[in-house]
């Protein structure tokens, strides 16, 4: 990509940010899994005290290691709270044209009105969510008929033209899911989730377990859908490459906490949280075979997270304060042009140094605060 193109992309981003209002706002969200096993209660604080807002028309990425609560966050934002998942505190609100809607208190009617028409969801492992014994066209009809008046012919016609626009061949409609490749199934699911032109799309790891070629196709499809309707896309993945390619803004989750949030280029160029830095540095790059290391240690168990900063046991910069106090998520001053959403970080020992593309910082060379 040429520098001009990059600049224009940046400008586009800025434009979005300026005009947009927030579509989703979550405040102090606590979504825990509370299980009764053996009569013993166990609480997994999968999302713990999390505040974020997502702007209309943007692609908002959520990154983090496996098991850090990404999917849980999405479910909470979607308002799909099924036991043992419990909302312990906080709120989630949508704002579309007609005022605010409390996402966590949806009635069955609300759901029928909101789901798929306004808010839609592509779950993790979306290649497995199609009914294996139902033809694709029937599934389309089921999903369309659930939310709007239609006949079988109409809904199939709708599906046909939509699939064509998305570059899937028509024959797919007559197939059963197992007759399609994984990537095609994933694309069908995306089509299913977006055919009713929702304003807000939650996509949970839509590309894991796909090979790069198919992954690329799926991601381009998502982007196309998002751009066509100027809808909002919330994309969860732990693949930083995908974030880099697709999102406008990235939130980094660690052990149920939001640790850093900034526009994409900032996250990749000037990450401030040690965890984010690790995440990006550890990625190998083409054309570079010098040694890289993973993040030391393993993520904490969420039913008994460490006190203070949850990253401290793995953090080379950790000090006593990290072990005792939870770092607040605060905007970084003096960054950005002041009009977009701020760059927020939750760390006592933020690192303020650019990450040069291609440059490797060895873990041991990470500056120590103490």
């Amino acid at each position, binding site marked *: 990509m040429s520098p001009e193109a990059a600049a224009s992309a940046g400008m586009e981003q800025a434009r979005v940010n300026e005009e947009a209002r927030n579509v989703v706002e979550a405040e102090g969200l606590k979504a825990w899994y509370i299980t009764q096993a053996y009569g013993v209660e166990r609480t997994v604080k999968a999302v713990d005290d999390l505040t974020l807002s997502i702007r209309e028309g943007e692609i908002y990425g959520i990154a983090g290691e496996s098991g850090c609560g990404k999917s849980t966050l999405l479910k909470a934002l979607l308002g799909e709270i099924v036991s043992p998942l419990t909302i312990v505190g906080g709120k989630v609100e949508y704002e579309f044209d007609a005022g605010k809607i409390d996402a966590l208190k949806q009635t069955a009617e609300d759901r029928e009105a909101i789901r798929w028409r306004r808010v839609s969801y592509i779950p993790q492992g979306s290649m497995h969510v199609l009914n*294996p014994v139902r033809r694709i066209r029937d599934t389309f009809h*089921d999903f369309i008929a659930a939310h709007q008046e239609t006949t079988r012919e109409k809904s199939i016609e709708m599906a046909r033209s939509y699939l064509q626009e998305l570059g899937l061949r028509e024959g797919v409609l007559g197939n059963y899911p197992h007759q399609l490749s994984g990537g095609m199934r994933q694309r069908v699911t995306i089509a299913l989730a977006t055919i009713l032109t929702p304003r807000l799309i939650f996509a949970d790891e839509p590309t894991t377990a796909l090979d790069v070629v198919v992954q690329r196709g799926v991601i381009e499809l998502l982007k196309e859908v998002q751009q066509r309707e100027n809808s909002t896309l919330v994309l969860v993945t732990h693949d930083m490459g995908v974030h880099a390619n697709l999102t406008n803004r990235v939130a980094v989750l660690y052990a149920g906490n939001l640790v850093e949030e900034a526009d994409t280029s900032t996250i990749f160029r000037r990450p401030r949280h040690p965890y984010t830095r690790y995440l990006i540095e550890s990625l190998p790059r083409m054309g570079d075979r010098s040694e890289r290391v993973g993040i030391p240690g393993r993520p904490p168990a969420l039913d008994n997270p460490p006190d203070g900063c949850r990253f401290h046991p793995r953090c080379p910069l950790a000090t006593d304060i990290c072990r005792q106090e939870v770092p607040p998520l605060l905007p970084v001053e003096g960054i950005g042009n002041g009009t977009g959403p701020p760059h927020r970080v939750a760390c006592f020992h933020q690192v303020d140094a650019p990450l040069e593309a291609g440059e490797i910082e060895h873990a041991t060379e990470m500056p120590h605060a103490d």
Partner: protein
Amino acid sequence: MTLLQQFILPRLLQWVIVIVVGITITFLIPRLSPVNPIQQALARLTQFQALEPEAVLQLKEQLMANYGLEGSIVEQYFRFWGNLLGGDLGPSFGAFPQRVNDMIGRALPFTVALLTFTTIMGWIIGIIVGTLAAYYPGRLTNLVAGVMIVVYPVPYFIIAFIFLMVFTYYIPFFPLIGVFRGEPFEAEFIATYLHSTFLPAVTLLITGLSFRFIMARALGTAELSSDHVQYATMAGLPDNRLMYSYVARNTMLPQVTDLGLSMGAIFSGTLITEAVFGYPGLGDLLLQAIYQADYNVVMGITLLSIVGIATASLIVDLSYPLVDPRVRYR
């Protein structure tokens, strides 16, 4: 390599082998029985009579000839296959000189009608109710499930007896035995037929139903936690659509398999139910035949059942892809 060669022919071959082995076993086993059909017939023919010893011996020979029991067991076996392939099951011993073909021909429609009705109804109702129960867990469901689990182990004939007592004695509404008036397919025949078949049918239905319910509920519950159902639920699909096209439909593979195989189990059920209700089907016929060591009738009926079950499972196997498009023939 075509499908025919690769799958259908071997499957057909297997069908043939299964039937031949099955029939051979049922040919041999009755002949191991201590009950001697000749002695049985002798006792029947000469009851209350003091017979000359000479007459007894002569009668025995006569019976041997009539029944086709001369020669070694191997000779009998090949003669049996010869007759069978000629479509003749031989004479009944207990009802000589009646042909087994005729006897089975008379009883078969009754059993088939009863079985088809109860099996299919039990299957459909069981699946519907079971799926509903899986879909709406709750107190009512637990109650229904509890009842079903209680009914499930109660022996067929106990249920039959209770119905018999209640609906022919205390509330004498149904006839005591199968009473059929009029020519087949006339209004009177149909009326009396329904009247006579009701109790045995309900008995079979109830026992079949309870099993089907338990199975459908278990399968439905498992299906409910599957990804595609959860996703469709999230997408706000209406309940009936979910239940029918997403839960029940997906449990069809095991249900259809089981339907094919359950014909055998149900056959056992009719055996006794028919006896209790004086219903003129194959079950009662078979029971009598076993007692009288009426080899040919036993053979005829088991053969029917063997061919029936083998064919049912053949059809089930061949129709799997219709039921579940994922299935591949290997």
